[in-house]
């Protein structure tokens, strides 16, 4: 028994050391695909990025699956939204993986939401208000201007975590930043004619998009954030639409469309389903194509209904 145990321990140690030594590129665990894409823009070939969630998943509701623990175990760095978005599963992944590089306030832990101004910070938080985050709305990646600021912070952080490749990261970031600014200008021009549009959303997930486009959300299908639509609340919304005259009902591709379709049938307001992140639609393959698609679907849906 004792011999067997020591053989096992030796074998384990061998596996541990080889696995740690064999990795040349920086292994990054991203919580959401938007951050995977951003790390790849700045890290290029020098990083290997895994995304814990896909664009078809609600990032609030992910299981701390065995595969996530395995990926987190070997990661050199973690890049997540933070702001409590991943609070239902990330703490378990961080703890179970036994990897100090990806927890606490180490340099290799990067929470994107910390680097931008957040909207909807509640004055008080109570469970009876639904799924409200004490540090504000965490869905920050839907404002490309904020993504730009996060990119700058991420570039700095990557340089600190892997100084040997600092120059390459800085160069990649400068290139990305230039392309990103040009793209934002283009999207803003295309969306300018629908400024001030009023919209009903499924979840309060689009606040940053509206902040950018200067749109206004006039209601949500969810009676409280995170609480599924109820018939009574939907009926109340029918009345609200006659007052507020929204021109769109907006939901993410992963969300249940029954509530939105019900309201649309009764009010004639069109439903637009948008990818909330990369992978949420087939054509949304990186940050550029994601916003391309969002802007495209919105301006296509709006002309007839624009105010």
């Amino acid at each position: 028994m004792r011999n067997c145990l020591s053989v096992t321990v030796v074998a384990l140690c061998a596996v541990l050391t080889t696995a740690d030594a064999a990795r040349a590129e920086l292994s990054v665990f991203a919580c959401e695909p938007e951050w995977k894409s951003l790390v790849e823009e700045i890290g290029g070939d020098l990083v290997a990025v895994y995304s814990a969630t896909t664009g078809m998943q609600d990032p609030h509701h992910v299981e701390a699956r065995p595969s996530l623990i395995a990926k987190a175990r070997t990661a050199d760095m973690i890049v997540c939204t933070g702001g409590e978005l991943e609070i239902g599963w990330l703490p378990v992944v961080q703890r179970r993986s036994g990897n100090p590089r990806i927890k606490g306030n180490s340099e290799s832990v990067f929470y994107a939401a910390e680097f931008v101004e957040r909207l909807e910070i509640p004055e008080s938080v109570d469970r009876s208000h639904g799924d409200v985050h004490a540090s504000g709305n965490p869905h920050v990646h839907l404002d490309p201007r904020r993504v730009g600021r996060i990119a700058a912070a991420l570039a700095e952080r990557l340089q600190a975590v892997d100084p040997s490749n600092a120059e390459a990261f800085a160069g990649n970031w400068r290139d990305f930043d230039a392309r990103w600014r040009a793209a934002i200008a283009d999207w803003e021009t295309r969306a300018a004619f629908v400024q001030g549009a009023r919209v009903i959303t499924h979840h309060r997930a689009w606040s940053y998009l509206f902040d950018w486009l200067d749109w206004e959300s006039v209601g949500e299908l969810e009676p409280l954030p995170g609480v599924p639509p109820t018939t009574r609340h939907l009926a109340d919304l029918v009345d609200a639409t006659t007052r507020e005259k929204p021109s769109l009902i907006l939901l993410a591709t992963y969300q249940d469309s029954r509530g939105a379709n019900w309201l649309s049938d009764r009010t004639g307001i069109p439903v637009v389903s948008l990818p909330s992140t990369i992978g949420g639609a087939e054509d949304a393959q990186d940050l550029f194509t994601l916003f391309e698609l969002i802007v495209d679907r919105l301006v296509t849906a709006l002309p007839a209904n624009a105010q």
Partner: protein
Amino acid sequence: MNRAFALPAALVCTAAAGFAGLAHADTGSPIGIGAVLDGRYQDGTRAFSELEDGFGLGHTELSFFGNIDERFRGVLTTVIESAHDETELELEEAFVEAIGLGTGLNVRAGRMLSGFGYLNGRHLHEDDFSDRPAVYRAYLGGHYYDNGIAANLVMPTEKFFSISLEAFDGEKLAASGTSVADIDTVNAWGGQVEFGADAGQSGSWQVGLSLLENDNGMTTEHSLEHHDEHGEEHEDEHVSEHEHAHDHGPEVTGGRLTGIDFTWKWAPDGNAKNRNLTLSAEYLRLDDLLDETLSAVPGAPKHLDGWYLSAAYQFSPRWTVGLRYGEVETYHGHIHHDEHGIEGHYDTDETTETDLSLAWHPSHFSTVRATYTRQEQRIHGNTSDENIFVLQYVMSLGAHGAHTY
């Protein structure tokens, strides 16, 4: 201490800070305080269970948890159970965990749930049914927790591969009648090996192998001296804690418990919010039940086993239906033990259970569940059955640790 308070704001998220996010505050603020309220009305009596007919409180938990510093985390979970005007306070968990060791290693010391099988390491409030499967109730006393030490190592492999070792005091697992003087200081030890991976974007699975060696689990001729001929224990100051009316020890014990578990989860595109399915199955086998002398008695069982298969399907954001079937073997003896030696015989009994549950969970924090159980028992070759109905609520207040897979 200042360090803990200086953590970035986005990390600070537990109840003390006014937490109300998705639910599961687990990092950041110095301490998470949470309670789980479990109340029920039960009609019928379940085998190997202390919960009885009528109104009762199930498993009311009060827990405190948080990071102690960058190297340690602490968890304290007290369980309050109340029945028949008696309120009992149990310490289910009181451990510190070294979390800064690196290389995939976590070490726990103190009182903790054993990691045996799929269910044992989980809190009862995470279950999809009102009670643990019969095999868990009979072999582990529902859920086995004890004082000891445990280490878990996650290997740096592409697929999930984890190895755990644990050692416990083990007194509560001792065979009935074992005298306290006979009990070793470390009497239960074992471990688990777990593998897991994704199966496409929608599915994921985990397989585990578990072992629990119980040095005082075997019933011996000596321990029998504390029994009468029907296997009932005498009131005797030497007998172990099993005497106690509210003891949570198992129904039957043996020198070795082994288990294999399989879990498969599915959600469309991996998005569990609206619909998801969990299938799990476990097989447990209890060996080394009786010493050499007792094994010679007619009908003496060599080993016992039990298993269950359960499915829980969340078919809408607010509703989950569960179906579970399980079987477990137990035994009892009619043994006369006197100066002439041992006479009598053993019988192996069988209990089967089919559970059907329907849960309504309007938010992440509240569940109201109805569970119907059809229980059939074959004892002495006679069959009996029982219909058990439980209506319960399980609600969580304050901070709530994120659930494991």
